[in-house]
Structures are given as C-alpha cells and as structure tokens.
C-alpha cells in the first residue's frame, strides 16, 4: 500500500503530526518528500484515531506545514541484508556512505527483530581468547556473551576494544568465518576514524561492517543505529554461519538520544529523565546476542558506555549491568598511574565464565586461580584503606605483604600494554607466581592438592625482587 498525503498538521522537534490517515500500521515507515525533491524517512510512533505522530530520522529542519508530501510505505523499518555488507561503511540507518555504490540485497528484515525463544538458545560455553590477562583469567569472554565495557570519558576503552579485535581468536574452528559489526552512536569523528585505522592495521577491514552515526548526526537516526547493526549481525551469524563480534559505542549517547526523543513526545519521565521503558529498550538490544541450536554462527556483543561522572549507579550503566552477562569496569586511578588496560578487577565480572573454563576449555586450575586472585586482591583493598589512615609503615607484616602483592599484581598482571598478547597458559602461570608471594595459609580458596603442585614461593619472591629492583 502506498498512500500520499500533502501537507503536515504539526511539527514539534523531530516529530511531525499528520491528520486524516487511514490504513497505516503502527511503527511503519513513511517517506517525506520536500518541495526541492529531497526525501527524508520517518516512522509512525503513535496513532490516535486518524492522527499519526511520525518521527523523522533526518530531523525536521526546512519542513513546513505546506511543503511536504508524505508517503506511507506500508512496512516497518527494514535493513537490506547481503554478505556484500562486509567491508562497507554505512550511515546510522543502514545506507552506504562510502561512495562505493548501492548494495544488492538478498533479503530485507525488520530492524526490531523478534525475541529469541529461550528454548532455541544454546547455552554459550566456548571461550574467546583475547590475549589480555585480566580478561582471560578473571572475566573470561564467552562466544555468544554480551560483556560491556564500563568506562568514563578520557579513558582508554576504545584502545581496549581495538586490542580485543586485534587479538581475539573469534573463529577457533576450521572453516568458520568471523566478522565484526561496528556501530558508532554519537561518537566523534576522531573515534570513528581511530577504529577504522585500527581495523585496517589489523587487516580485518574487509570483514567489518561499519555503521556510523557521529555526534553531529540526527539523534533519531541514532536510535536506529544499534538495531540496524544487530539485524545485520543476526543475519550474518544465523544465516551465513559466521562468528560475529558486535562493538557498540557509545551506549550512553544512545540512551540520551532516547531520552531526547521521549521528552519531545511528552512521555512521563522515569529516573534522571530517562523514559520508563529504558530497561526494556536496552534489553531489546543486548538480548540479541547468543548462539542458537539451528545455526553454526554466534553473536557476541561488546557494548561500550561512558559512565557520566564515573558513576556506576547512573541509570545507563545500572540497567546495562542488570541485562548483560557481566561487565568490564575501567578505573580512573589505575589509568592515571599509567596502567594499561586499567581494568578495575573487583567490580568486573563475567557471568558465563564459570561454565566456559576449566578442563576441556581452558585449564583445570583456572577457576581456583581466578577465585583466589579475586579474594586476595580484595584484601589488598582493605590493606590500602588501612594504610591511608595509619600510614604504610604502621601496617602489620601480613598487611604489608598484601600491599606488595597488590603492587606486583598491578605491575605484572594488569599492566601488560597494547602489544602484549598472552596465551591462557602464560596468564594462569603468572597468576600462580603472583599468588606465591603470599604465605600458603592465606590461600584459602584453593584445595591442598592443587597448592602442592602450583605453589612456588621462590617464584613469588623472584617477582618481588625484580619489581623492587626496577623501582
């Protein structure tokens, strides 16, 4: 069906209202043609009798009540899909902007997707080796997982994401292809360019689909960007059997766009002005990660969000944490101390890790060493807190040892740099060597048999000596 209506009834921010519409469907697409022949696209977001409210993706600048002809296209917002998308750069609503011409599509798909039936999911178990010790050992990334990076402005989340892309061995099995879907939402030109360069340097550019909605692009288009990206990812993973890593940055900008749109619609705001349905909306993005029984591919998500004012209880990180399967939290004080990647170990977590590590996946002793590292590093924080009150000199011998362990942990384990790629064996052995700094009686998460095999106090002492020698 295609209906044409001349003129508009009302224009308000990114929304326009039209009267006298019959036969249009909720959330269907419309095309607005201006007098100068340019076209814009929009979507019906509310219907009341014969009145429709339409959001215009490209903004309403230049529209008047008379100069526009609206066509109801009769289908929801769709993404044109084809394997040719790999290597292309698209705008936020999925149209090519790299000047390489149109894409010949194989099929079109509603960008809203459909909920995945929990019965059809395969429980994700295969781990992705990122070569980054803190992630591999303590918050293992699993294929089909959604693991966000919680960062703050000015921290090196982009570099970390680029390093994961560079080192991650996403397609471990023979014959399986991998691909990357990159969605930029409201990031600056520099950031988009940084990712493009790093994809080129890694030589993966021809396997990347880039969706760019930069910070000066219209906000309504920003709301579509992750949906287009995930529709593409699902198509490549579940129909073309590829292993897809989706990087979405920056989720906070996306949520702000949603807030702007919601308030212009006159909706009742929830916490901090964000709409009450923010949780459901974010869930409809994040839940599109996974592995299904009927396809060989997988969708793994690494959303990046900057916490406003580094506040982890802000609605965006808070709701994200409730939906995603863990989080990687970056820490400003580690960053300021020059430690890269500045991963704050204690609040970071991977929920799917427990079933994807150990015998047959990584190594039998993996869960023991990671639990003990977490527990011991938590005690370092207690010692640090005490030291800040009574001074490091006054600490008891055991607290001093914990301080040393903490420094060594940050120096050797966390601060591995952008160019170091560690195997899982190297990482786990390093973990044991660090734990060997502590007296055996302090290692209460490990059973005695494992300790006999892995506890080498001389290696721990050597690490300490080396670190002090440097200092």
């Amino acid at each position, binding site marked *: 069906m295609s209906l044409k209506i001349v003129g508009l009834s009302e224009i308000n921010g990114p929304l326009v209202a039209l009267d006298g519409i019959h036969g249009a469907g909720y959330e269907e697409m419309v095309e607005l043609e201006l007098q100068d022949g340019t076209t814009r696209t929009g979507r019906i977001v509310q219907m009341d009798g014969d009145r429709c409210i339409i959001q215009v993706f490209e903004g309403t600048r230049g529209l008047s009540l008379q100069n526009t002809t609206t066509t109801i296209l009769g289908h929801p917002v769709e993404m044109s899909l084809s394997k040719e998308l790999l290597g292309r750069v698209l705008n936020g609503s999925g149209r090519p902007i790299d000047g390489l011409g149109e894409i010949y599509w194989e099929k079109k798909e509603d960008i809203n997707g459909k909920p995945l039936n929990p019965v059809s999911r395969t429980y994700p178990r295969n781990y992705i080796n990122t070569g980054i010790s803190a992630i591999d050992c303590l918050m293992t990334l699993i294929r*089909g997982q959604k693991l966000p990076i919680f960062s703050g402005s000015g921290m090196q989340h982009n570099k970390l994401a680029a390093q994961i892309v560079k080192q991650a061995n996403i397609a471990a099995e023979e014959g399986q292809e991998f691909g990357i879907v990159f969605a930029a939402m409201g990031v600056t030109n520099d950031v988009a360019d940084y990712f493009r360069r790093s994809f080129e340097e890694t030589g993966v550019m021809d396997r990347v689909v880039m969706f760019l909605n930069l910070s000066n692009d219209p906000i309504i288009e920003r709301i579509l960007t992750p949906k287009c990206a995930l529709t593409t990812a699902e198509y490549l993973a579940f129909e073309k059997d590829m292993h897809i890593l989706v990087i979405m940055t920056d989720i906070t900008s996306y949520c702000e766009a949603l807030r702007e749109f919601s308030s212009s619609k006159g909706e009742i705001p929830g916490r901090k002005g964000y709409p009450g349905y923010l949780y459901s909306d974010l869930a409809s993005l994040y839940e599109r990660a996974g592995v299904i029984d009927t396809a060989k591919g997988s969708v793994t998500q690494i959303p990046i969000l900057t916490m406003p004012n580094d506040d982890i209880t802000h609605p965006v990180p808070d709701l994200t944490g409730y939906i995603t399967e863990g989080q990687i939290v970056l820490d400003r004080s580690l960053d300021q101390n020059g430690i890269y990647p500045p991963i704050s170990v204690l609040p970071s977590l991977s929920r799917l890790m427990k079933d994807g590590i150990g015998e047959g996946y990584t190594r039998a002793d993996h869960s023991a060493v990671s639990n003990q590292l977490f527990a011991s590093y938590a005690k370092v924080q207690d010692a640090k807190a005490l030291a800040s009150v009574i001074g490091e000199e006054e600490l008891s011998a055991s607290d001093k040892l914990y301080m040393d362990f903490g420094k060594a942990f940050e120096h050797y384990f966390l601060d591995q740099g952008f160019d170091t790629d560690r195997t899982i064996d190297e990482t786990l052995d390093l973990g044991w060597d660090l734990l060997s700094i502590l007296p055996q009686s302090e290692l209460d998460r490990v059973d005695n048999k494992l300790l006999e095999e892995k506890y080498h106090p001389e290696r721990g002492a050597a690490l300490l000596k080396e670190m002090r020698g440097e200092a």
Partner: protein
Amino acid sequence: MSSNLINSINGPVVTIKGPTDLTMQEMVYVGSKKLIGEVISISAERTTIQVYETTTGLRVGEEIIGTGAPLSATLGPGIISNIFDGIERPLEDIEKTDGAFIGTGSSIPSLDPERKWDVTIKVSVGDELRGGDIYATCPETPLIEHRCMVPPNLSGRVSAVMTNGQYTVNDCVVKLVDKDGVEHELTLCQKWPIRVERPILKRMPIERPLITGQRVIDTMFPIAKGGTAAIPGGFGTGKTMTQHQLAKWCDADIIVYVGCGERGNEMTQVLKEFSELIDPKSGQKLTARTVLIANTSNMPVAAREASIYTGITLAEYYRDMGYHVAIMADSTSRWAEALREISGRLEEMPAEEGFPAYLPSRISQFYERAGYTVSLNGAEGSVTIIGAVSPQGSDFSEPVTQNTKRFVRCFWALDKSLAYARHYPAINWNTSYSEYVDTLNRWYSANVGREFMADRQRIATLLHEENDLMEIVKLIGSDVLPDDQKLVIETAKVIRVGFLQQNAYHAEDTYVPLEKQLGMMKVILYLYDQCAAMIKKGHAISAILETGIFGEVVKIKYDVPNSKLEMLDDYYTKIDQALAAVI
C-alpha cells in the same frame, strides 16, 4: 452490537473509542493477527487494552474481539517439566511452529492436546462432589501424581464416569449434575483467572522450615514452608545464582521458576542444568518437579507483568492437590518496572520514581498469596514465595525494595563488597533478617538438636561483635586489640570463610544437611571456648594461631563428606591436641 475497532496505538497500549461490551480484565484478541490482550480500563469515552505481543504493523480500525472470560491459566497434567512464556504458551511448541524467533499471534494450546494420560477415576456414579474434591488422578512425572479437582465454584452429583484408561486433557472423564439439574463435563483440565487467588478452606500457622541446604539460610536466616522471602541485590551480587541453588536443593515437592524480564541465556542454563541434574532425594531429574516460566527481558512487557500471576496460579493449583510448592520470581523489580512502563503509557499520575501509586498494593497482593493452607478437599499444602529484587543503583531505599520489605518476613540482603571478594552466597549477615527464627525454634529443637537455636545465637553474636570491632580495626589496625578481642575476630573469620561461605560448584559443599550444619557450628564454638580459656590463662593468641588449627576448621566444609558426619568428632581431639601443644 457494533464491533469494537482500534482507535489509537501507543506501544503495548491500544484503545477503543466509546463504550463497549467488554468487561474489566477480559481477555481479548486484537487485530487481524489476533494478538492477545487484556482490558485494563473502561470509561464512557474509551476502553483501554494492554497487548501481550508486539504491536508493530497493527492498524487503526482493525477489530478487537472479546473472549468473554478473564485472562486465565489452563490447569491440568502436562504443566510440570514444561517451559511457558508469561501467558502460559508452551515455548517448545512455539519453537516447532515459529522457529528460533518468536512470532506474533501464536494460538497454541497451553497443554498438549494429543498426549494421553494414564487416568485412574476416583469417584463413582451417585457420589456427591464439592469444589476441590479429587475425581481422577494420573502420573504426571515420575515424582508427581496429578490430582484432578472439581473447579472450586462447582458442586453436584456424579451422573456418569468413564473407565480407567488413556485420556487426553480435553476428554471428558466424569459428568456432574449440579443442584439446578445442569450437567457439567469434567475433563482433565480447568481454567482459572490468573489474577484471582484460588479459594482455600483455611490457613494454618507456619511452623515447618523449607530446608535449602544452604548454611547461611538454614542456620542464620531460615525460611518457613508457606513463608515469603526477598533477595535484594545489585547486579553481579548473585541473586540468580542464589535462586538457582534454592530451586535445585530446597525440599519443596514442586518448584515454579519464573524468569521475569531476565536474561535469555540464564533461562537456557536453567533448562540445561535441570534436565541433567539428578535430585539426590528422589533419584529423578530435577525437571520432574520443575515448571519454568520464561519471559525474558526482550519479550513483550505486558506479558512480563502477567508472568508473575501465571506462576503463582500454577503454584496454588498444585498446593491445592496437597503439595509443597516453592515459587522463585526472578526478578520482581522487572515486574514492577513493567507496571511502571504500562502506567506511563496510560498517562497515569506517577508516585515515587515514576512508579504508579498502586505499586505497594500490587506487591502485597502477590506476596499474600503465599501460605500454609488446608485446601477445599482437606489436603495440607503450601506456597513459599522467594522473590529477587534488583534495586536501581544498588540502593535499597528505592520503592520496590522498600515496599517489598514491608510484606516479606525474610530478607536476604546481598552485598556488593562480599560479592567483589567472591564471598558467595553474598548474603550480608548484618543487614539480613528472618522473622521465622522464633516460629521455627520448636521444629529445629525437635528434629535437629535442642541446642541448634542457642548455638545459632552464639554464632550471630560473635559475628555482631566482630562487626563492632572492625570499626576500630579500620581506624587503627588490629595489632592494638587485646588478645580476647583478637580471638573474636579470628573466630568470626572462621565462621565467615568456613561456615557462611559456601561453594555451589563443590560436590560436597553445594548442599549441606542440617546435621552437618549443627556439627560445624559446634566444632567452631568448641574451638572458640577452648581458645578463650587458654587466653584467660595468659597464653598468646599468636601462638595458638601458629598451630594452624583455625585453618583446619575452616576446611571442614570440604574435608568432611556429608555421608561421614562422624568425622566431625575427630576435630574435638584435633583441637585439644593443637592447644595442648601450645602449652
């Protein structure tokens, strides 16, 4: 009567202009795709309907058809071991018709209409039956015998019965003539509106514990059969993990697990784990006693709101048969948010933090459906509700946590700093409480040991003293404390690491019988008493610590298997020997 046509659409909320013949909370079919919806408000100007499926593509002017009945659950054999969405549609059958992604307008019956059940008829012609009476039974799973009950609002004389044999859920097995002479056909299944509590004969006092095998719960903050508990905690504190542990190990006959607005992968994990795990008590798979209701966060929000009610209705149905049912709702915050979302679409006046003003009354209505009851047929059963709460920003002062706290009697507060230190279950012993301690005292004394509650109190006191001492330690370090206070800190550490902390992945530690819990408490207290006596005599605590006896007591949980509890006795000698060596 003119047909009802859609006038406006806003997300899951659809309205009809003008007065209609629809009634409040009536279930309706919306539009040409026959989406399922429910009437939520009626005025002279408009009737408002919430739709349980996505409304994309719906048009103004499409028809809405009433069903004449409220949104109901179908109750009958085939519920156990199944997995449903929020409005009791079987997800496995949806997968067969729709594939991996859930489509719209699926009208699949809740219970398999083809499957035959091995039915035994329990009544004969001429019997007088009242609502709730059992007229037929059939084995539903190896563990559960399904008892078909006369619907609560029906009574009469049996006019015909079929022979014992194979029947499907919709076959008539008994005919009943009521006092007006109307004949009713009783099949194996019945319908019940999900928002209405099923009637009972009377409530019983709550005095039996729900045994979970989790030390921090059974010993410190026990929950009773028919009781209510809330598990609040920020993300990553292990709410879901705790719920899973309870679903696996608690001694209820039937578990209803409601995944309300949570992760899809988690539901898949429950499905997979429960179909592999064997219940040690019965030797059967855990799925033989479990119903799953999965309405993940990306499934329609209105169905999320309904999923809690669907779950509790199924639980009440099995309670009426005489079973002890535990319902885990993960998470009630998502349900409250669904209320908020729909309330926002209706443009209702918001109360606290955008939540509707009726939030507390909805929460209390839900938790009040728990209880230890005698059903209409005289059988004793219980529904225990354990609800997870996900406070926004981990702030326990937010409306959902606060209102839940008012209506539950057991509060297991999960703590972020414990979770960061990987102390699981991360139930904070200082902020949690259970109001059932007193009521369960008698049961514990009679069935576990007379000293159980007294020992529990001593353990709680030691933890409390430690908490006070830690305030000082945080300021000036532990070196300055006198030895008897250092002993409190060291003993509390043994309690925390060796008793409260429990490893869900360790074969012996994942479930601990009450006898071992008591035995462990006794050893710890004996250690404390003996050391306290030594310190009084002037021995230094540092010398006692050097013997390593504290570390050994901590590892009791791994070193003493649940089947060899007599090994606990050796620890008294070990403690005596270690302390003798100091002298």
